[in-house]
């Protein structure tokens, strides 16, 4: 397999920001024990969260995400953090938002049915610009569906699940190592942009056991939210300092901040009757992500030097990427040039990257474990430059490489 793991988390040496000190990081590393382990995706998510400085977890048991809560409940107290099993997933997101304002990096983990319940409070986190991480270990839906089977059916829900206009960030891991690495990234994005970040894992990768390697201090960047520097009386929790990401106070430190899901002014106070105020607020919430798309969007390109006429394109993401690597290899051995674009950041959607691919290939297929979700985003980005074919599979099994190859051959006309 021509798989190269994403190195971006460990490529540069960074000094972690306060208040996550080297001492605290080392304490987490000691608790996690061996550097190289054989672990499940769900477990790797928990490890990534602890290494990123997560100190509050609230969750509700749900297959296939429960292991993350189990690991967090065992290990969080060992590093001075707290874990609570709430009465449902609505409460879980509520609790992590409350904990975030109380100064903790916080996370919850769930699967489809729980993710559906969480949507209102995810919208609240977006509106109140509360950093938090939500892990969705996707399973087959709709409704209760196939609890023990993996799927990629929540991609659109991750972006559009709550009402109104907002932007958030969603990442798709395809290996157990990436479950760990991307959870750290999720926290970093969340703290950088004051936004809920969704980790779109799935039941297959969540329950797959693979080798993981834990990072050391200095291997990874750990970001902490920007705190206010102005005098307390002048502080406004939603004032744009030019970056579109306001500094965030911590409760109990004398800022007397007012946080509401209502349309609010820079002071935080409601201004629900004002069209310009609503527009300014919601536009900024969207722009702070859209303007930084270059920093947020991650893709992997595996392109050949071939002519457009002879080259086919594949767009994949998450666990399906693993099958695509194999299909690409077989196709190339058989003499078919393939350009493979792997999406890591599902939201914001890598439109430009997909459009660029469309200029290099005669057609694109989109294999995914649903009946066509990212396919629609790809078509929109391709904008008629070449035909796009969906290659969906549901029911809990991954595509075989042959199915992908047949889909490519079948889309020839």
């Amino acid at each position, binding site marked *: 397999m021509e798989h190269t793991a994403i190195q971006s988390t460990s490529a540069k040496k960074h000094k972690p920001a306060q208040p996550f000190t080297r001492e605290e990081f080392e*304490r987490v590393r*000691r*608790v996690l024990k061996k550097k190289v382990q054989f672990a499940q995706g769900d477990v790797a998510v928990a490890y990534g969260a602890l290494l990123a400085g997560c*100190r*509050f977890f*609230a969750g509700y048991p749900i297959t296939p995400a429960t292991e993350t809560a189990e690991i967090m409940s065992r290990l969080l*107290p*060992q*590093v*001075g*953090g*707290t874990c*609570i099993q*709430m*009465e*449902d997933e*609505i*409460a*879980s997101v*509520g*609790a*992590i*938002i*409350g*904990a*975030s*304002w*109380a*100064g*903790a990096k*916080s996370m919850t983990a769930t699967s489809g049915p729980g993710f559906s319940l969480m949507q*209102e*409070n995810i919208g*609240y986190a977006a509106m109140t610009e509360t950093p938090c991480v939500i892990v969705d270990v996707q399973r087959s839906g709709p409704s209760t569906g196939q609890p023990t089977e993996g799927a990629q059916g929540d991609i659109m829900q991750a972006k559009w699940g709550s009402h109104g206009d907002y932007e958030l960030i969603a990442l798709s891991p395809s290996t157990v190592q990436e479950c760990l690495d991307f959870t750290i990234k999720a926290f970093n994005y969340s703290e950088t942009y004051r936004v809920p970040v969704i980790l779109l894992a799935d039941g297959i990768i969540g329950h797959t056991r693979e080798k993981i390697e834990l990072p050391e201090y200095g291997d990874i960047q750990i970001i902490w939210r920007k705190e206010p520097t102005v005098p307390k009386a002048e502080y406004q929790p939603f004032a744009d300092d030019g970056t579109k990401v306001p500094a965030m*106070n911590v*409760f*109990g*430190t*004398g*800022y*007397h*901040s*007012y*946080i*509401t*899901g*209502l349309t609010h002014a820079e002071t*935080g*106070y*409601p201004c629900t009757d004002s069209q310009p105020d609503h527009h300014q607020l919601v536009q900024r919430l969207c722009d702070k992500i859209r303007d930084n798309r270059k920093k947020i969007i991650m893709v992997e390109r595996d392109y050949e030097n071939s002519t457009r006429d002879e080259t086919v394109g594949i767009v994949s993401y998450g666990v399906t990427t693993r099958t695509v690597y194999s299909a690409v290899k077989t196709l190339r051995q058989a003499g078919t040039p393939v350009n493979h674009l792997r999406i890591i950041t599902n939201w914001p959607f890598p439109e430009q990257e997909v459009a660029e691919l469309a200029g290099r290939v005669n057609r694109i297929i989109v294999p995914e474990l649903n009946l066509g979700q990212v396919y629609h985003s790809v078509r929109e980005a391709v904008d008629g430059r070449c035909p796009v074919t969906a290659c969906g599979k549901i029911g809990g099994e991954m595509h075989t490489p042959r199915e992908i190859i047949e889909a490519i051959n079948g889309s020839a006309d």
Partner: protein
Amino acid sequence: MGEYRHRLMDYVREEIMPHRFCVGCGCGTVLNAFVNAVEEIGLEPTKMVCVSGIGCSSWIPSPYFRSDTLHTTHGRPIAFATGVKIMRPDLTVVVIAGDGDVSGIGGNHLIHAARRNIDLSVFMVNNMIYGMTGGQVAPTTPSGTKTSTTPHRNIEPAFKVADLVMTAGATYVARWTTYHVFPLMESMQNAMTRKGFSFIEIISQCPDNYGRRIGKPTANDFLKQFRDDAIRINKTEGMSEEQLDKRIVIGKLCDRERPEYVTQLHEIIREQVAAVKREKTK
């Protein structure tokens, strides 16, 4: 002489006054009692977090009370408050919200917070109606009442929320009305200074969206009823459930000790951190 300034103005967000409560609404009375209670026990607003939901009475602390304030989604303030309290046990966390919010859409969070005996003070303002949306039937509306969504009559019994919370495990439960302001203040002080889950049901009035429909168009109509119907808990001995249902039982309904949730949670953390340290030094 300087301009007169009320001694409690520092506790409210003056810059967004006047408030938005309707004429005769009970929310102003509850805010008044709350602010007085906070001042009397010398609680620093900086060391408080107020959490509220959606509905008229959620506006009592948010935005009017000057502390860190989390105005959450409908029905969920207790869940949000749980996260705040666990991370900052040193802060006094108060939830003020309505009957629809706390016992209707958010009833499950109420039950489980009481069961955990987490150190929160929940002040449920019960005006027996969904007031903000214009007077729809609530879980607390007396049966037989005509509301905008029970135009014929309400066939459901009213929820006895304080009883529910007691049974679920709350360690301090009281019921007062907006007529009984001074005992209410004292009760709020007790709730905020003791450890454990404290719940006060405050029977309140909504003359505009409830009173108008039931022949009580002014606050006075309600307050007189609260005065006449109220009966102290210690005077209820020997009364049948049927008799009691016609009255408003006021007073401290329960005050007991049970292990508190956050204290125990932090005990576990101390044990676990110490165990890791021991292992390190081995």
